[in-house]
Structures are given as C-alpha cells and as structure tokens.
C-alpha cells in the first residue's frame, strides 16, 4: 500500500521527543552522547537511516533499530562518526591540553609523553606537535615525546612520509601551513621533516593486552572514535590496557560524542571549559 516515492527523508516527520528517545537509546547501547547543540546532526543522520531502511515512520525505524536488524545499530553508529581525518580536528581538546592539563607539569626532569592511538595517517600526532609549539609558552622547557600508533601499517607508512592533500589542511591558517609544510606540485604538502623525525610511529592493537603492555607512563592519550566500534568486552579490555598505559593522574581524550561512562568506570570525569577529559586516578579509590 505504501508508495515507494514517499520514502524520502523529508517525508517522515520526527518529533523532538522521538529524537530524544533515539538519543537515549544510542547512549544506552553505545555510550555516544549528543548534546543539545548537536541535535541537528542527529536529525540528519536519523533521516538518512530512515530513508535507507525504507521505514515509514520513526516508530517503525525505532523497532528495527532495537531489534538490530541487519546490524542497523552499527550503520547508525557509522553514520555518526565522521572518519575523515584532518589537522586540528577537535581543536578544543588541544586547547584543553595546553590550558588545563599541562599547566600542572612541573617535573622537567622527565619527558612529557603523549600518545595518539589510533593515529591513522598522522594528522593527529602532528597536530598535537604543531599546537604545542604554537600555543604552549613552556614548550621549550620540556622534553616532549609524541608517539603515534595504529593497527594499519599502510596508514603508518603514510604518516611517516607526511604528505597531505589540501583538504587535510583546511583548518590550518596560511601562516601555519607556511611554517610547517612545504608545498608540492599537485595541491599536496609535505610536513616539515623535523616533525616527521620527532614523532615515533608504531604499530599497536588496542585490544591486544600483550602489545599494549609495552606502552607505559603516558601523561596524555588521545583515543578518539575507535572504542565505540568494539564489542563490550573488547572495549573494557582496551580501557583496562589504556589505564595501565597512563601515569597515575594521566589523562585520556575520547571522541566528541563518546563517553567513558559506558566504556569503563576506571576513569574519573574531569570537566574543563574546553572539553571533557577522563583521568586515571592518582591513587586507587578505596570504595565507591
């Protein structure tokens, strides 16, 4: 009876309360949390999935989602995570790093260790390095060790080569590009070899506790938009490994919609004006 032509996103009306219920469900199942100012983002993705599943109403789509028919939950999660990587992505986290987290650094005898995992093709660890040089007044007073790791060796190779298209540089000012990149002939740029030589790229698998055991004493870990893809026990294992990889009091950043609350209660929540960060407690909590 339904007219296939009616299956256009605009054809299915979704109320704000229904969007809210969807967000509640997503939070319960994945830990992804969408603040009110991100609701438009949810609206669009929801409309896409309603259309893609040929659902005639929110009710129908929600029933489908709950039964996880055809892995719809994963489709929805995928729709929410933009896999594109670029320099200075989620700049507010970088700002939080220098404004709030590194302020407490006092011991100049030991290096500050920062880990980007997964680092993909290197934009994230390089962004961290550039940001520190540009925005941290004390950057020359410390040794800073930045490590970028990924399970994908092709991505790591690309990171070590350090050539990027102009799309990856879209958030950088012309001055920054000029300072840290050398233009190549075809709208591509190579990052300053000084930076390539400064960052240690390694292959590592978050879910492999034996591999993760080689990484220790990190002050800050960036682990963005990857934990939500794991199943529950793998996610917990990764979180437990990351805990051990941090120094006591060390911090971990997740992706903008991810919450550690659904992943693991090992970490404390720290709310700064620029970002939410999770922290390994300095000492074990006695009891809850």
């Amino acid at each position: 009876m339904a007219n296939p032509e009616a299956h256009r996103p605009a054809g299915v009306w979704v109320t704000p309360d229904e969007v809210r219920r969807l967000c509640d469900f997503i939070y319960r199942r994945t830990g992804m949390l969408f603040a009110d100012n991100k609701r438009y983002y949810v609206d669009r993705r929801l409309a896409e999935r309603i259309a893609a599943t040929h659902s005639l109403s929110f009710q129908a789509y929600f029933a489908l989602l709950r039964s996880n028919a055809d892995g719809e939950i994963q489709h929805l999660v995928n729709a929410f995570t933009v896999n594109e990587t670029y320099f200075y992505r989620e700049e507010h986290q970088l700002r939080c790093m220098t404004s709030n987290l590194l302020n407490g650094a006092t011991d100049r005898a030991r290096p500050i260790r920062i880990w980007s995992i997964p680092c993909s093709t290197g934009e994230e660890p390089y962004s961290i390095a550039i940001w520190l040089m540009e925005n941290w007044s004390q950057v020359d007073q410390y040794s800073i060790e930045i490590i970028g790791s990924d399970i994908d060796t092709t991505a790591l190779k690309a990171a070590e080569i350090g050539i990027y298209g102009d799309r990856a540089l879209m958030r950088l000012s012309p001055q920054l590009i000029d300072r840290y990149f050398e233009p190549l002939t075809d709208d591509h740029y190579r990052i300053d070899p000084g930076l390539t030589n400064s960052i240690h790229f390694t292959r590592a698998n978050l879910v492999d506790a034996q591999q993760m055991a080689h990484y220790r004493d990190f002050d800050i870990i960036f682990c963005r938009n990857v934990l939500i893809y794991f199943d529950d026990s793998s996610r917990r294992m990764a979180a437990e490994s990351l805990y051990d990889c941090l120094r006591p009091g060390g911090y971990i950043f997740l992706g903008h919609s991810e919450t550690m609350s659904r992943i693991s209660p090992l970490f404390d929540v720290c709310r700064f004006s620029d970002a939410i960060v999770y922290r390994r407690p300095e000492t074990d909590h006695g009891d809850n």
Partner: protein
Amino acid sequence: MPFVKSGETSHLRVEPRRSAGALTSADPETRWNAARAIGIDADAVPQLAAALRAEPVPRVREAIITALMRIGDEASIAALMACLRSPDAGLRTACLDALRAMPQAILPFLASALEDHDSDVRIMATELARSVPPADANRLLCKLLEGERHANVCAVAIDVLAEVGTSDAIPALQKCAERFRTTAFLPFAASIAIARISGTEG
C-alpha cells in the same frame, strides 16, 4: 623542536601468564594483573566468582568482571547475577552494567530474577529485560506486572515496555495503572507507554 624520540617505547617485562591463584594476592596490582591475564578459561570461573565477591578495589573488580564476561558461560553469568543481591552498591552496579551487554546469555536467568524476594534485584532484572529480544521482554514483563506490588519495580517495567513493548503489553499496562491508580507516577507512565506502543504519542 622540543620533541624527543626515544629509540624504543619504554620496555616493560611483560608479565607471564598468571594463574588464577594470584587473584588472592594481598597486592591489588598483582590481583589486577592476574584478572587481566586470565584468558577464556572456564576453569577459572569459581576463583573469579570468589574474587569478585571479596574484591575491595573497584578497578580490580572491573577486571574480574571483564574476565567473566569474556568467558561468558552459564557459570560466569550466574556469578554476575548472584552479585546483584550484594549489599555493596558499587558491586551491584558494576555487575548490572556487564550483564546489560550480554542479552542472550542472561535470558535464561531472568525469569527467576524477576521473582526474587528482593525488590532491588527485581528492579535490576527488569532493567536487564530492556536488552533481550522484544518478544521475550514483553512476555517476561507482562507476567511481572500481573503480580508486582512494589511501585518502583512497576515503574521500571513500564519504562522498559515504553521502549520495547508491543500491543500485547497494553492490557497488562492498563491493569497495572488501575491497580496503582492512587500511586504517584505509575498511571501517568502507563498511559505514556501505551501511547508510545500505539504510536499515538504526540
């Protein structure tokens, strides 16, 4: 540039695979490592279960729970379910969160948990019904609602049915609302649940 690249990442002597016996060590770090090193080993469940009940350090408790989740057999689920009646709120919550993630595995345990004499256990079991297949959730919760006298248990059941309920649940919801007509919140909740199930919520 202030960046240093050490030739190696800090090498740690990786702990050899530990036996479950290390779970009873007096040192929390040893217990933590032991729990994390246990693989998918059904033989370790009794020691894990015992360790879980006694573990005072929350993060070690989490590692023990992860180990049980990975094994995931009937004995593991039973061990986690048993902790739902613990007087320790932290332990209850931790186990509930783990069980939430294993809907197929918990299904055989729900019917009796929903009849537990402890209303808190019934509340948690009702919450767990949220993640099992809707047909099972409906069946279990409609049965619960028929006889449940504790208002807060009903409140959770209504909340779950508002999400996963089918039209088969409507009579049970209506009867519940009637039975609790003078109790705060329940009639309201039931009417919203019915409206959502019918697709008539504004």
